[in-house]
């Protein structure tokens, strides 16, 4: 994991002190809300429905146990004893007091954390594959480049006032767990036929009110050029992106209106000017950053653990969890563990301070003191010995973090919605909770198989509804909540946007509608087909016919 150097630490500390003084000025009245708003947003502080909300960056989802304990402490002392994991791999607190902010930022700075650029029209937290560095099928570890991008984009003087916010995501695997095609810039790290490492560059993806899948504008970019090429893209966007209308200000609109080809031409032209300049990453710098991400001190273990095999055979509940929550690791004898923060009937992504403390302790005991936050609002332990899995599971059961729903229908992505968010037009969490209760039966979930159900409480799509295999968006219709259903989205390497199936439903109706769609799928699917495969094979009509012909 990256560790702050003297410069980083000093900068974050100074920034915390600076914002502390700005808060004092606001409280004493020498700054008006209008003057203060951009300053608080630059530090991740929003004003939501019930209170201030603080968004804290978790750089590309990587978190250590000391940081997690600090987040637990902040939740306990300054908030209402819980936090919320977000779809940008960050942590949010919903009940922050402005007057506490100076202290909170110093607390965060003491563990190398902050909220800088977690809001505003700048380059936001870089996101990445949560299995970075450990997935068995990974080509290269994307974290090195995430860190380079993080340093380059932090307080970049040219890109601090972009037309609109800007999101970058990086993956190093064939299997895309980072939704790279749904980002302003998506980078797919791979090796070409000559064995050279480089990126395929996607631009102009994004969700919100005008969703687009990112366009591939460069098939292969040598890794040493990653900063200069992103700089060229940002320069073109910064100059030509619309500033007259915030709803048309994202890069996706520019790329769409201009056409990917014309946009690429401008980027290449700009890049030709700067590619051999100061932004070309020297091998020595790459090595320096790589050193932060060397694998932990793994033991040499056999691939299979007889102990684990015996435990799987003797404890059915453990076996169910293990079958669902584990992923294959590069290192023999180790496993990747997905820790679900979407238990049945609870808000997806919420985690109590007590749970945070337990997770931090477990990370120290079983996972080299580190963990990851996923864009699906869960946690991952990346390096657990197979022989430790049973003990880890027992501890997770005790604190309600052993739900077995990874990649299943109850593991929804869900935005805070109208329960918290000032932009929302409908509640989203109650629907996610009801859906997880409707499909709580483990056998039923397993029968349905891999499926992504994403849910947002307004068209801004923080819950990624367009790229859910099943997507739900809540809107306000004459002061009532109406939920629209869309099918066919995917955020993975086969990215696609879902399409609205028909008229919307009320809160209970949407739960029935999803069950209806699932029943149709179970009848129509060929063996081994996932939901998305069946949908792509048969199209929306069978789903539509069955759903809307049902007696009212």
């Amino acid at each position, binding site marked *: 994991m990256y560790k702050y150097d003297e410069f980083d630490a000093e900068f974050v500390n100074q920034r915390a002190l600076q914002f502390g003084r700005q808060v004092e000025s606001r409280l004493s*009245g020498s700054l*008006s*809300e*209008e003057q203060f708003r951009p300053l608080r947003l630059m530090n991740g502080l929003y004003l939501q429905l*019930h209170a201030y909300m603080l968004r804290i960056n978790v750089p590309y989802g990587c978190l250590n146990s000391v940081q997690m304990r600090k987040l637990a402490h902040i939740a306990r002392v300054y908030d209402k004893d819980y936090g919320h994991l977000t779809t940008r791999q960050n942590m949010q607190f919903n009940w922050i*007091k*402005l007057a506490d902010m100076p202290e909170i930022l110093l607390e965060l700075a003491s563990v190398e954390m902050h909220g800088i650029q977690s809001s505003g029209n700048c380059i936001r937290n870089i996101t990445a594959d949560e299995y970075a560095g450990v997935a068995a099928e990974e080509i290269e570890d994307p974290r090195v480049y995430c860190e380079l991008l993080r340093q380059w984009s932090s307080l970049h003087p040219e890109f601090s006032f972009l037309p609109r916010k800007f999101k970058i995501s990086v993956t190093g695997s064939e299997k895309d767990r980072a939704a790279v095609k749904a980002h302003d810039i998506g980078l797919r790290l791979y090796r070409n036929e000559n064995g050279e490492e480089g990126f395929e560059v996607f631009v102009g993806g994004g969700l919100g009110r005008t969703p687009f899948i990112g366009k591939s504008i460069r098939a292969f970019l040598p890794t040493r050029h990653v900063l200069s090429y992103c700089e060229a893209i940002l320069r073109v966007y910064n100059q030509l992106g619309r500033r007259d209308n915030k709803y048309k200000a994202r890069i996706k609109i520019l790329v769409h209106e201009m056409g990917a080809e014309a946009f690429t031409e401008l980027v290449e032209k700009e890049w030709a000017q700067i590619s051999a300049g100061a932004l070309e990453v020297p091998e020595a710098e790459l090595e320096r950053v790589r050193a932060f991400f060397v694998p932990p001190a793994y033991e040499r273990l056999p691939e299979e653990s007889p102990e684990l095999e015996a435990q799987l055979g003797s404890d059915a509940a453990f076996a169910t969890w293990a079958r669902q929550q584990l992923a294959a690791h590069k290192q023999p004898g180790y496993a990747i563990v997905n820790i679900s923060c979407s238990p049945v009937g609870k808000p997806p992504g919420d985690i109590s301070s007590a749970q945070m403390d337990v997770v931090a302790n477990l990370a120290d005991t079983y996972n080299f003191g580190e963990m990851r936050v996923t864009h699906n609002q869960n946690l991952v332990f990346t390096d657990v010995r197979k022989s430790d899995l049973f003990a880890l599971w027992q501890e997770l059961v005790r604190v309600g973090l052993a739900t077995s729903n990874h990649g299943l229908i109850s593991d929804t992505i869900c935005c805070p919605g109208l*329960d918290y968010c000032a932009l929302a037009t409908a*509640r989203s969490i109650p629907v996610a909770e009801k859906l997880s209760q409707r499909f709580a039966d483990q056998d039923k979930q397993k029968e349905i198989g891999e499926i992504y159900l994403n849910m947002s409480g307004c068209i801004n799509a923080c819950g990624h509804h367009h790229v859910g295999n099943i997507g739900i968006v809540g809107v306000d219709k004459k002061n009532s909540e109406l939920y629209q259903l869309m099918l066919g989205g995917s955020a993975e390497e086969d990215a696609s946007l879902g399409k609205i199936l028909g008229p919307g439903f009320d809160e209970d109706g949407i739960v029935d509608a999803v069950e209806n769609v699932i029943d149709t799928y179970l009848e129509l699917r060929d063996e081994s087909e996932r939901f998305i495969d069946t949908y792509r094979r048969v199209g929306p009509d069978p789903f539509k016919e069955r759903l809307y012909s049902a007696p009212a």
Partner: protein
Amino acid sequence: MATVKKNPVKFPDGDAGPMQQVVIANRLTDGVVVFLGRDRQWVTYLKDCPPAETPEEAETLLAMGVEAENNQEIVGPELIEVQDQNGTLAPIKMREAMRARGPSIRTDLGKQAGN
């Protein structure tokens, strides 16, 4: 200069009953939702807040809200429409109802829980 958001509330015509509005805002220091009560005091529960019965009263309330914002007491004062629901005053719009109560999925939090 404070930014004032006004909900486009339509006042009922004729004898449709008394129109009622209150001023809602967030308290500056902690963001807690507050309502403009008697004697320019900001109260945390809608039940403690006498609503304006006429458009003129509402405008007066809002002017007080703007003044309070300029005095750095609160943020984002706006008029919202409320009505009597089974003897309790409640906002008509769901968004404001949420602010007046707290999150529907955590009834242990917010005003509904007295914290």
